[in-house]
């Protein structure tokens, strides 16, 4: 009984906290809708929210859906590959002094390179198909994760390692039970940044050259002055970003609850 009450009061608190931001969104949408209608703004310039919403109920919805899958798939596969590579690299850097000295300065240095500007080079090398956008997404996602994770692995409190050694833990156990959990918050911070960058990377690739994907659809709709379609594609892009980000948040939550 008591736990039900606790749960219910927590739920009420959550709902209460969601009210102000929802009100903000609602007012923005209402003001937008009213301005477009009352000021007779041309649809090609700024379509009303209801017009964009209606598009999802029309035949064009399947068109958007068709173009969402390739973008999402490329972003997720690039993102996933980047996580694996970044974990391996961070582990190697943490455990090998030579590798650390040889590689780490370049990882930091590459942080300042505006990586999005390198997209055309990937297209030049890997062509206009899946490969170039997948590799480019992996490339942009890799850096935030590897740097955050390396920092995290270094942040492990030395006393905790000493404690684990004193009770007979092996090096692998120390990595698994001490260093990794200490690095987790850092890892997820880097991963959340990378999650959003994966979509940006793919869309930029699609902007440069592509015959499908949301990036392509946005450009296509733009060139045909089909602004409602363009806006709808952007809305779906935002939702895709939220979905990837949400998956990371969920993964973080599950990992943390498993640790205790």
């Amino acid at each position: 009984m008591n736990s039900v009450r606790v749960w219910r009061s927590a739920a009420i608190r959550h709902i209460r906290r969601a009210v102000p931001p929802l009100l903000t969104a609602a007012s923005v949408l209402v003001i937008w809708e009213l301005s477009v209608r009352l000021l007779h703004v041309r649809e090609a310039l700024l379509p009303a929210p209801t017009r964009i919403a209606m598009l999802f109920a029309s035949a064009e919805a399947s068109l958007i859906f068709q173009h969402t899958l390739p973008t999402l798939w490329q972003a997720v596969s690039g993102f996933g590959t980047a996580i694996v590579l970044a974990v391996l690299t961070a582990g190697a850097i943490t455990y090998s002094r030579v590798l650390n000295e040889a590689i780490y300065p370049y990882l930091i240095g590459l942080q300042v390179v505006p990586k999005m500007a390198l997209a055309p080079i990937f297209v030049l090398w890997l062509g206009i198909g899946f490969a170039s956008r997948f590799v480019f997404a992996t490339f942009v996602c890799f850096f935030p994760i590897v740097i955050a994770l390396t920092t995290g692995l270094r942040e492990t409190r030395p006393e905790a390692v000493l404690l684990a050694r004193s009770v007979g833990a092996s090096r692998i156990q120390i990595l698994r039970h001490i260093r990794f959990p200490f690095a987790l918050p850092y890892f997820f911070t880097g991963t959340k940044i990378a999650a959003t960058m994966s979509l940006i990377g793919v869309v930029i690739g699609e902007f440069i050259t592509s015959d499908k994907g949301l990036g392509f659809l946005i450009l296509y709709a733009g060139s045909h002055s089909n602004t409602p379609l363009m806006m709808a594609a952007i809305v779906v892009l935002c939702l895709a970003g939220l979905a990837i980000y949400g998956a990371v948040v969920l993964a973080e939550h599950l990992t943390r609850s498993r640790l205790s």
Partner: protein
Amino acid sequence: MIGPGDRPVQHETEPGHPSQIEAIRVKKIYNTGTSQVEALESVTFSVASGDFVAILGPSGCGKSTLLMMVGGLELPTEGEIRIGGSRVTAPRLDTGIMFQDATLLPWKTVLGNVLFPIRMQRRPIAEYRQRALDLLHTVKMADFADKKPAQLSGGMRQRAAICRALIYNPSLLLMDEPFSALDALTRDELNEALLDLWQRYHKTGLFVTHSIREAVFLSDRVLVMAPRPSRIIADVRIPFPRPRDASVQETAEFTGLCAMLRAKIGSHP
């Protein structure tokens, strides 16, 4: 009341080795790259099985280094340390260590932290759960088993750390100024809790501290260390009978012993 591993006092001491810990001309030099720092000049002492011995000295006298070497976390540069007759080269499963900081893992509950050594030693967790809860009960922490360390006070964290050190029933307990970061009242409370556990479970204990009163209150013997060069300058037996309680600190004999130890430390600045 206490779980499976707790048979009558059982030390892994070989016949012919009445001392559980022996340190023989132990020397420790740290290489700091450009120079060498001598952390310990030459230290020889032994601790009898079942004794509680305090190593007392000012900061920087090498007492913590000495304890880490007994725990197998550091190796002596020269000389050797033996436990139960065998040379210490790595951490041993018959040794438990308490650090200055409780060092609880923040993502684990109190119970998870107490069971952490069991998990690392790949022992069956289920068999030790009851023992963990009993230990927490003895230090009045039973109600906090499911709390996270961030929800506890400093004193409570060290109580949990005591339980963690005792969970796998080591015969030797090493303590590196475990209560020095706590306020005076909490510290007295924890010293009494420690003494209580001590009298109940009969371990051998080595306790590093810079508090004279703490050393006298807890120990059977006090080894006094002095810095530069780091060495043991006195070995004082504390005659108070056990079980002891806090009232022993009010006696003239207690005050006298403290004054005597203070004079010894003072004579070697």
